[in-house]
């Protein structure tokens, strides 16, 4: 194999390719062409590879070695169930998000017939069942498993990640079922312990083996080596590598990646998030060091209505509503007024998404005086914030949008980053860094260092 690595992202709208020269640690060519997953995914891929080939010669072995991630055909859609909402349901949710999934439904307690019907109509790629700590409650997960034993193939892949004591009984329930049922470690083996890594691994494995086949994405394997993970997972892998470093390079340290898009806004934080002061009490389930959240209502294309609702309390530029009406029709900003509007909406998305991702301090008035209680991660000390995604990359003022992540004096109980350095994923290479990190972490990190632009 030559020094060229091709890294591909099958998006729902665009198929993107980055060609990297490993020896020079350099991006030699990029391409972005419409995706053709509804028809035949290989068509769009061939088109994109042709563009690369025209810019920089690539060989067939280069193509055969190419790795891809995908968010095409709806991404990896999951439904999570657990027992108590703030315990096992939340743990299941965190596990699915950490594996790069789009959580289309999250349920708690024993499911009803109606809920099961609802889940069937959602037709998730994977159903994740949790509930009970190891040795704890058995009833809820067994009930929920039984509720799906007679259902059709709308729910074909099931991961069991609850109380391990229930595995034998659940195996009995699914004995004659055609479903693909995977048993893995409990996402919450004990109270206060979150163990999502084994579950993440099973989700990714199912994605690689079954889901990309069902979605027609696996056809790309006729041309390239493999589609190894969902795109958000590749971005999270990149974030992990950039934060944690590799070999001599210690990395950036704790960081946040913010990725606003047309339909959702993703936030990844690689940080411990422990309370900044010893007198602050932590409460709730501990959150993972590598945490991803997805805001399904914050998107610049498909969620404009929700965004304009959020804007209602703020001062808006002139002609705001008529301009937004034009965005609704798919118009991109051209005039200064339109840019101002677009900028404001992008800032808002970033601000709200970061707010929801960050930990919060609550003041509790007790018989012994005021106490501060922290929920979630304290991200005030995070040193770097990386912006990616169309609304930031193509903006004229990316820094201004990214500043939406900052801590605000007037809102001191939301633990957002205080003094981070800002970086822009100008060339849209984060996913490629994540893919490359699986085999060449050192080169992948060097690539990130070279192409993430401080702003």
């Amino acid at each position, binding site marked *: 194999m030559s020094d060229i690595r091709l890294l591909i992202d099958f998006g729902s709208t665009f198929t993107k390719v980055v060609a990297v020269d490993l020896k020079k640690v350099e991006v030699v060519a990029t391409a972005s062409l419409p995706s053709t997953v509804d028809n035949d995914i290989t068509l769009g891929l061939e088109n994109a590879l042709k563009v690369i080939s025209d810019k920089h010669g690539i060989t067939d072995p280069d193509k055969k070695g190419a790795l891809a991630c995908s968010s095409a055909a709806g991404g990896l859609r999951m439904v999570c169930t657990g027992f108590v909402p703030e315990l*096992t349901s939340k743990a299941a949710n965190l596990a699915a998000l950490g594996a790069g999934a789009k959580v289309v439904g999250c349920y708690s307690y024993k499911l009803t017939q109606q809920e099961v019907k609802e889940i069937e109509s959602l037709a998730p790629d994977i159903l994740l069942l949790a509930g*009970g*700590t190891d*040795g*704890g*409650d058995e009833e809820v997960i067994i009930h929920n498993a039984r509720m799906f034993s007679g259902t059709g193939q709308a729910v074909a892949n099931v991961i069991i990640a609850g109380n391990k004591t229930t595995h034998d009984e659940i195996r009995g329930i699914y004995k004659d079922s055609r479903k693909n049922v995977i048993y893995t470690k409990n996402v919450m083996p004990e*109270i206060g312990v979150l163990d999502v890594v084994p579950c993440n691994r099973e989700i990714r494995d199912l994605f690689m083996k079954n889901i990309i086949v069902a979605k027609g994405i696996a056809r790309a394997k006729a041309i390239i080596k493999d589609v190894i993970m969902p795109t958000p997972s590749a971005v999270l892998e990149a974030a992990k590598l950039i934060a944690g470093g590799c070999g001599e390079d210690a990395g950036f340290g704790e960081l946040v990646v913010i990725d606003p898009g047309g339909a959702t806004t993703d936030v990844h934080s690689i940080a411990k998030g422990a309370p900044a002061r010893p007198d602050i009490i932590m409460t709730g389930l501990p959150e993972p060091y590598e945490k991803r959240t997805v805001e399904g209502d914050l998107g610049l294309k498909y969620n404009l209505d929700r965004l304009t609702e959020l804007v209602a309390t703020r001062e808006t530029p002139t002609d705001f509503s008529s301009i937004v009406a034009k965005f609704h029709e798919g118009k991109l900003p051209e005039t200064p007024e339109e840019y101002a509007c677009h900028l404001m909406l992008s800032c808002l998305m970033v601000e709200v998404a970061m707010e929801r991702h960050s930990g919060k301090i609550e003041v509790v008035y007790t*018989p012994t005086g005021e*106490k501060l209680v922290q929920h979630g991660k304290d991200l005030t000390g995070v040193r770097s914030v990386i912006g990616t995604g169309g609304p930031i990359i193509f903006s004229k003022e990316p820094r201004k949008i990214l500043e939406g992540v900052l801590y605000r004096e007037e809102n001191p109980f939301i633990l957002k980053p205080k003094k981070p350095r800002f970086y822009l994923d100008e060339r849209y290479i984060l996913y490629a860094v994540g893919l490359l990190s699986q085999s060449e972490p050192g080169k992948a990190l060097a690539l990130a260092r070279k192409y993430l632009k401080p702003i």
Partner: protein
Amino acid sequence: MKRVPTVITGTVGMDAHVIGTKVLSRALQDAGFKVVELGMQVTPEEFISVAQETRADAILMSSLYGMAELDLKGFDEKRKEAGLGDVLLYIGGNLVIGRSDPREVEKKFKALGFDRVYAPETDTEVGIADLKKDLKARGKL
């Protein structure tokens, strides 16, 4: 073989006097129980949700700062609502402010749904013996 009984310990409300619950947790472990230690400043709601997920057989709360009654307002209703009516409830410590008749205190907390109420400085062995007896009576030991 019967399942090892699971018990939850912690100080309730905003009480931070953690020594008692730590000593008790250790003694319970030594006596063969599975102990879920929630430590200090545990809200009543947290006791409930943790008892649900762990299928706990008993909750043993401590409180030393005299505000337990305030902290536990509505607790009995909440736990019954959460389907935990058969979970044993014990509490011990300085449960009210000032000097008061221990029998009065016991009455007050039994009315709040507690099965056993202990005065300060009760030996852990006493509580553990009671717990074993109560669990046996329920066929859980």
